[in-house]
């Protein structure tokens, strides 16, 4: 039984290269399975379902019933958003778009048989598979820290309970205490994220603990929107924030979660909160699928198809695609290109040339928003940057306020683009 079925699906796939209209034969509609209901996966599922108008059977696999966006989770730390306001459920994707939402973990992928195994034990067949599992952390990248230390030293780089924990820890710091951040090396999710976080933590501390200090140990010589952040830190939080870059040992850091110490280039600092953001790699399921090279899953820029298996598309943070930063905006943009490619392959619908864009807004303090953005095109080699902009230092307050307001509009826009 199983063998025949494999053989059968194998034939269909081969046929579909020359005749894309052939679907999974007697089994009804062609199947797209999406793993991960975040910025990339939820968008891809919604676009495939919406634009194929029922011609494709869409299944979305995501363990959480409630997705808390990392974007705006720093604003939660600063007190600008509630946790509720950044939580989203999958109800509309199921009821309005007919997407089969399965709350489970994908634990295995058989690329030959084109099946996905779920932790709950069931198996899903696919004609096309999309992986958008986000990131996982690289063990040992910060000596002394592993995932079992995340309650003592939270990363808060996947949003939800980790973010709430970090906020509680900051709120219970002693007056004049120290919040330390171990910043990640490149490449990592959301290049301005750690520095927006520092801004929001400073905003909170300025209100509740004005003599507290913020210490950043950073392995990178430079970081995203650096001039803008540093200008803002000087202006709003003068003297509170100290950053130790690699020239002073910021790349030689270990931690001790029991003793609550950070050791930077041999000198031991006792801290009250330690936010460790370790080095990152593609979500583990990519490794399990055997489609990674190094830490990430390489893809073709034209379709977001894996370079290793053309029946799999990889989106968002997990992909190695070229010039785009790992952001929610990027993942959403890539999802639309992949959704179009998947529809084209499974139903023969028209495929237009790929186009991508990204903008990352960050909040430095109340009504002080900054942004950086770019457009991209697909080349055979990679997703290549075309044009870009970044906010300028010294902009007036009205412009910064307008930038912040724009980010609020963007948040509402992207979350309704993901979840319907």
């Amino acid at each position, binding site marked *: 039984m199983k063998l025949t079925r494999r053989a059968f699906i194998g034939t269909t796939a081969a046929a579909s290269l020359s005749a894309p209209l052939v679907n999974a034969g007697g089994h009804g509609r062609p199947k797209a399975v999406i793993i991960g209901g975040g910025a990339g996966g939820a968008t891809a599922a919604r676009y495939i379902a919406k634009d194929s108008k029922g011609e494709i059977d869409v299944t979305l696999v995501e363990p959480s019933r409630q997705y808390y966006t990392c974007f705006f989770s720093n604003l939660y730390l600063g007190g600008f958003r509630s946790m509720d306001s950044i939580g989203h459920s999958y109800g509309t994707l199921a009821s309005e778009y007919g997407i089969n939402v399965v709350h489970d973990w994908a634990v295995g992928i058989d690329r030959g048989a084109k099946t996905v195994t779920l932790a709950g034990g069931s198996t899903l067949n696919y004609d096309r598979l999309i992986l958008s599992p986000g990131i996982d952390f690289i063990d040992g990248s910060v000596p002394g820290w592993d995932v079992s230390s995340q309650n003592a030293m939270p990363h808060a780089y996947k949003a939800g309970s980790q973010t709430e924990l970090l906020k509680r820890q900051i709120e219970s710091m002693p007056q004049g205490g120290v919040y330390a951040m171990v910043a990640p090396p490149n490449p990592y999710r959301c290049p301005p994220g750690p520095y927006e976080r520092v801004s929001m933590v400073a905003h909170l501390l300025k209100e509740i603990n004005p003599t507290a200090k913020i210490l950043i140990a950073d392995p990178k010589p430079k970081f995203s929107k650096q001039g803008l952040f540093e200008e803002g830190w000087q202006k709003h939080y003068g003297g509170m924030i100290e950053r130790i870059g690699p020239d002073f040992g910021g790349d030689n850091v270990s931690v001790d979660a029991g003793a609550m110490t950070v050791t930077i280039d041999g000198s031991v600092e006792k801290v009250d909160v330690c936010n460790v953001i370790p080095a990152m790699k593609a979500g583990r399921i990519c490794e399990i699928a055997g489609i990674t090279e190094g830490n990430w899953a390489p893809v073709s820029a034209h379709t977001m198809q894996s370079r290793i298996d053309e029946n799999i598309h990889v989106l968002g943070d997990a992909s190695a695609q070229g010039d785009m930063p790992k952001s929610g*905006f990027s993942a959403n943009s890539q999802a639309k290109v992949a959704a179009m490619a998947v529809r084209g392959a499974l139903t023969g619908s028209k495929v237009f040339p790929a*186009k991508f*864009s990204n903008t990352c807004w960050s909040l430095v303090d109340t009504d002080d928003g900054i942004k950086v953005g770019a457009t991209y095109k697909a080349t055979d080699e990679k997703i290549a940057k075309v044009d*870009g902009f970044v906010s300028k230092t010294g902009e007036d307050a009205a412009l910064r306020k307008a930038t*912040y307001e724009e980010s609020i*509009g963007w948040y*509402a*826009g992207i979350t*309704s*683009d993901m979840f319907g």
Partner: protein
Amino acid sequence: MKTLLSMAATVLFGVYASVAVAGDPEKGGKVFKKCKACHAVGDGAKNKVGPQLNNIVGNAAGAVEGYKYSKALAAQADAGLIWDEAALSEFLKKPKAYMPGTKMSFSGLKKESDRENVIAYLATFSDTDTLAAVAADEREVTLSDATLSIEGDVAYGEYLASDCQTCHQVSGASDGGVPAIVGWPRVEFVYAMHAYKQKVRPNPVMQMMAGGLGDEEIAALAAYFEGLE
């Protein structure tokens, strides 16, 4: 499009055509009977169910004193809608399609000649010489006839629009500093995008997005968004 052509010409060459519209005003007077239940025009015309229509052709939308417009029209007026011949003709073809939420409950004038004629009739009550010039002058950018007359490909627009929808909600809802862009008359959409593309409007995100679009692509987006409600 003819009026738009001649308007562009007036700006370029500084010559104002006294009759900017193509139709026959006499025939238009007959067509206007269909409008009379709600609209008055001519000496001493007053607002009725609809606004009085003196000086409507070539004028800014939503400008008749003392008339309470629908939200939809007021929003378009804020966005800079000008009742030139092209816009009026599109509106009169099917008011509810052109402007979802309009108060005007009139199914529309299907025949192009009827629309041309009734606009020509209304133009006789409008000071088109000065108004047309003002209308063109008020545009932030000057666009060629060729650019303005591209028929956008809606399917292509739908694909391109996915890029816009990361920020602009397809439902037409809007939050924070990101405006709704559905249901705009396409002429307005085209002008707005070109104004960003030419960096006459300041927002760098929109300058970047529009900067990456060709004339055909802008027309496609305009056609797609116009059709959304």
